[in-house]
């Protein structure tokens, strides 16, 4: 059974009175545990598609099912609950909360979204700090970390709720070449260990080859699907 099923998904919005068809009748399926990338130039509709998948935006038409739930009719609150239960998010600019330490940033979704008991929280956070190689930096604030370190913390935060799906919008765009590779490899490694599904968008040609399933998107349309053979 597919984790994500999109059928004729479209999203149209207006900018300064001009209608923009950001996503046009896109259909695809993603299996659990997949490591998928949506690739395309800037403005091709990757971010809009990821926003739709992450229940942060509603499609204009079409149907979207995630983890067996039709997410298109969810209201704002229900969408927030669904996101908290099923998704992890990794952002291009890391988006860590500057007033929390690395440990506290990872712990945040367990406290503020899931209400996980303290003992279990501590165990999960420490495990992930270890997994992303940030155990020795746990008490540092985001302002004291490098870009790569911040993205590692962001990955740990995305995974700490044990989500079914991690959505990453251009996760390596603000990183140098070596760090970008290390981050993608870290994501793949964690995917293997936890069997979490990763979907990320990128236009970075350096890391496109790392995806196992590659969707090419341009002008809001899916142009093709490639499967990398290991």
């Amino acid at each position, binding site marked *: 059974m597919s984790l994500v099923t999109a059928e004729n998904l479209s999203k149209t919005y207006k900018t300064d009175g001009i209608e923009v068809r950001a996503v046009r009748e896109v259909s695809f399926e993603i299996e659990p545990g997949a490591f998928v990338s949506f690739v395309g130039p800037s403005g091709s509709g990757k971010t809009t598609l990821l926003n739709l998948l992450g229940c*942060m*935006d509603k499609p204009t038409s079409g149907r979207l099912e995630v983890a067996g739930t039709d997410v298109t009719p969810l209201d704002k*609150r229900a969408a927030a609950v669904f*996101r908290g*239960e099923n998704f992890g998010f990794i952002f291009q600019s890391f988006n860590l909360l*500057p007033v929390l330490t690395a440990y506290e940033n990872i712990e*945040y*979704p367990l406290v*503020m*979204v899931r209400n996980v008991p303290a003992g279990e929280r501590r165990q999960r956070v420490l495990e992930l700090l270890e997994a992303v190689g940030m155990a020795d930096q746990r008490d540092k604030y985001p302002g004291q970390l490098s870009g790569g370190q911040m993205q590692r913390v962001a990955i740990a935060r995305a995974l700490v709720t044990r989500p079914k799906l991690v959505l990453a919008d251009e996760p390596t765009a603000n990183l140098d070449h070596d760090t970008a590779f290390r981050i993608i490899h870290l994501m793949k490694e964690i995917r293997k260990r936890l069997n979490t599904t990763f979907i990320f968008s990128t236009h970075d040609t350096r890391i496109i080859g790392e995806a196992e399933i590659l969707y090419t998107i341009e002008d809001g349309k899916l142009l093709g699907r490639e499967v990398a053979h290991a």
Partner: protein
Amino acid sequence: MRNLCKIASRNLLRYKRRTLLTTSLIGIGVVFVLVFVAVTGSFKRYMVGQITDSYLGDVQVHRRGYVASIENLPLTMNLKAGEAEKIRSALAGIPEVEAVSERIKFGGMFSNFTETTNIRMNAVVPDKEFAACPLMGSRILEGVKDVSSLQRGKILIPELLARGMKVKLGDTVVIVATNRQGSVNGKTFAVGGILESATGPGGRDGYMHMDDAVDLLRLKEREVTEVVVNLKNGNNLKQVSRRLQEAFAGELNPMGMPKFEVHTWDQLSPFANIANMIDVMTFFIKLMLVAVVLVSILNVMIMAVYERVREIGTIAAIGTLPRRILSLFLVEGFFLGVTGAVLGGAAGGAIILVLNFTKISFSFGRNPVVLSPAVAAWDVATVALAVIIVSVLASLQPAYKAARMEPIDALRHV
């Protein structure tokens, strides 16, 4: 909740200067209100004390309709002995009563044998009058400052009258009065003391012994024009007044109306208007504090939301419910209010303490007024609570705005 508080407090500490400025502004507002309340309250207490303990007493009882015609000092509205007894027994059953004095009030002519002028006389039983008006002695500017200055044959006259009529302590004067039947009688007195004018309607009043008034007015028995009641604690004023009115409820005149009327000092003294004005000013000062807090917190919270749009987008994206986001900003507003109230309360308390040590004094009438500013714990609690509630309310709009943000728009914010 602990985590909400942790995040909120760290966000406040993140902008230390702004937080400091906001809490300082609130604190200064609280200080201003507390010091104002303390100083004006002290002035009010002093003045009320002067008025009630010098002349008016806390409560007065008359025959119904007397106060309306008080300027005429009508002897026809005196209370008969039996009626006065009923008032006495009602007062005896009220433990809050400290002392009671009965007076016969009448208008008369005051003569120094060369000039004559009018005077308002209060005929009293000295012991009882000095007990019901404990500042009576201190009002005696010349003469013995106790009951001996009001023994039979002696009279206390107001200072202005003594000066105008060139009468000195020990001089003999004549009081001429018309009694209820219209017959005129005169009696000589020795000036036993010269009185400082009391603030209020008692400013031109003289005093004599009750028995002298009975002779002068040719009364068959002791009558009473007014009963002055001094309370152990002025805060029980309304309660005692109510109890007296209840006690007199069954006493009706032939018209079926209540026979007696009970007035508290504030119904009799024009200073009550000044006291009310002080209360109104205090209310407006508090309103200004509310405005200061409202504007400060609203401003700072709007800035906080505006500066953290992407953070709000992030936490909303990862599943934080809108009400949690709302709570986060409300807690920040709450902390700002609490900090401002605590700082202001502490600084205000310290300033009031210093003012008590330094003793504020100023001239009000003849005597210098020395204020002892004090603020009740209840007042501090009310002001602090108001500041905190207003802080939370002022945070509500920005917090609501943050909670309603669409994560997708917030994340796009640059």
